[in-house]
């Protein structure tokens, strides 16, 4: 009897230890991926967004983007004219502001808006905010192949998000996310993301992100051009003062 208990205990320890190692691996992979995504101290660029509906009709949006560290991002539409000047500021601690030129003042984005489409695109305000995945999600390694790791990300306790989980393929060679599938609270697949990367200097960056809303059968391709890294952007860019002085 004693032997049986000993064997069972040993097996449990092995299982728990193996599970722990796997979790640590997943956390390590996600951390490494965040380091790749947020490797530049700062970056600026121009975005061209191609919105495609289920009939194949396309609409174009253009914007400028500024990013610093892992938690500051400014985004300002430059075209079309009806959207020009609309700006979005993402700051640490889940603080986001929207500036609509017609109202001439900024407005805090309340939590209820975060799962809404950002200016008609398939990206939500939550997708647009600048936050590392490690700080929001607990990862689990689902699968490993020669080319990629498949991670399942579940929201950390207390995080307000529209997603119940995200499944993400992380490229093993460069540690960037190749594709993602996000699921709603009912477990239904909500959106897919496909990324195409390019290398600029020493950094890999997503040259094109294609987000598809499966329910709407609508997609947005976000194509980045004129990317500049490490230009020592001032913190003053990421302020309400700058947001409103368009």
């Amino acid at each position, binding site marked *: 009897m004693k032997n049986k208990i000993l064997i069972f205990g040993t097996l449990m320890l092995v299982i728990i230890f193996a599970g722990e190692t796997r979790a640590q691996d997943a956390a390590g992979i996600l951390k490494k991926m965040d380091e790749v995504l947020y490797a530049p101290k700062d970056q600026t660029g121009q975005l061209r967004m191609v919105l495609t509906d289920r009939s194949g009709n396309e609409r174009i949006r253009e914007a400028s983007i500024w990013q610093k560290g892992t938690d500051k991002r400014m985004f300002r539409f430059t075209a079309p004219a009806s959207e020009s000047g609309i700006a979005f500021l993402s700051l640490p601690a889940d603080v986001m502001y929207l500036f609509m030129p017609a109202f001439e003042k900024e407005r805090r984005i309340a939590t209820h808006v975060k799962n809404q489409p950002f200016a008609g695109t398939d990206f939500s305000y939550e997708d647009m905010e600048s936050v590392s995945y490690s700080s929001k999600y607990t990862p689990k390694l689902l699968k490993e192949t020669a080319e990629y790791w498949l991670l399942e990300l579940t929201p950390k306790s207390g995080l307000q998000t529209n997603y119940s989980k995200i499944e993400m393929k992380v490229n093993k060679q460069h540690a960037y996310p190749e594709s993602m599938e996000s699921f709603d609270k009912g477990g239904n697949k909500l959106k897919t993301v496909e990324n195409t990367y390019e290398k600029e200097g020493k950094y890999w960056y997503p040259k094109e992100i294609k987000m598809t809303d499966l329910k709407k059968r609508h997609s947005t391709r976000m194509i980045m051009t004129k990317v500049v890294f490490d230009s020592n952007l001032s913190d003053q860019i990421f302020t309400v*003062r700058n947001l409103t002085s368009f």
Partner: protein
Amino acid sequence: MKKFCSTFLIFLLLTPVYAQKSDQLTIRGELLTDQRILMKADHDWAWNETRLDLKLDKRSGKVKFFGNVWLKHLGGPATLQSSGLYSKDQISPWNLDLREAYAEVSGFVFENLDLKVGRQRIAWGTADRFNPTSNLNPFDLEDVFDFGRQQGSEALNLTWHFNDRFSLQGVYLPFFRPSNLPLGLFSGVLAQPFSLPGDLRLSGHTDKLLMPRHNFAEGATTGIRFKGFALNYDFSVSYIYGRDGISLMQSARIVPLLTFPYVNVEAALTFPRNHIFGGDVAGSIGSVGVWAEAALFVPQKEIIQSIDLSLLYPESPVPVISDSITLEKKTWLKLAVGADYTFHKGTYLNVQYLHGFLHERGQGNLNDYLILAIEKSFWNDQFLLRPIAGGMVVSDWSKPSENFAVFYTPEFIYKGIDNFQIGMGVFVFEGKGQSLFTGFKDFNMLQFKAKLSF
């Protein structure tokens, strides 16, 4: 004057052609048409507006220039005489409105100081569209349904940024300008009620405005605002010393006519001066967006309305004057409290309670308003439907059934083509008693709007 304005507009339009090549002057704008038709039997046109809205923007380092001009055609022919047929201005009335033209310097002398000088609109407060604390610019009431629209004013505007979160703003508006009043069918809706004593009947009236002198003591408006972010809420506190842009009758002289009891009234109108202490806060409770904004108005002096009846009593050895207080020297508080929420499928709800509308003033004279809007975009944001939009007002809670108004303003907008939108809406009013919206109940309308952005 119009020639000057036209020349100025041409200058504005031509300048960018030259400047665009070298200075990256950007020109944006909108072309808007807004047509409203009464629902009553003959379906008269209630509003006809075509507006060219031009925005000019040029940056050079820390300096930015911004200009906003509205060129508008409003209403129908303004002549009933053949002589007017020689004037295109009368056949097709138009106006030019320089809404803003200012220079803004970020980091003026000190890195933390911003300067904005010129004609500008200064929007204070965090409530949605109805901002009790935003009292620096006079209201632009031309289109009385465009609630909260304000004129530009010449101003010196300085803001010191202590850090990313806290700032102190000081503004000085040297000239007082009154609010412009509603046009067309709606021209009388803000008129002050005036009852003649006894059996007198009004034949006609004239009035004069007691305009303040353009100096610091009389005409200037000053304001200061401390704005910040703490405990996850945006907030501000403010103070304004300025004048109410909507006039108040200070005196009237009754002039009897040969056709007694018909009389003429010669009135004098004043613009009361107030101290206004404001505060606002905005943030979230749970996932619901919330805001509250309040302004305490402290009138500088009591306004006594004197009705001079002396001409009715020529034999009287002393002037016969009837005095009544039209604005007591008592404070009143305007308040806006609201919340908004977006449901899972994208339906947006916005509800707001107001105590005191834009034009209301004086302790005991403010009404309570509940304003509600529900909207939903669909087909990838190509359509916006606002099926429930409107509200209600109760002007006397002791008899609400006799003193209320409801207004319903749903609309439907198509936005399927970039830079173009077209919409249709309805204005329906009903009510009893005395309130702004009760005054609209004869003006139920259909509205058609189209806007092109460039």
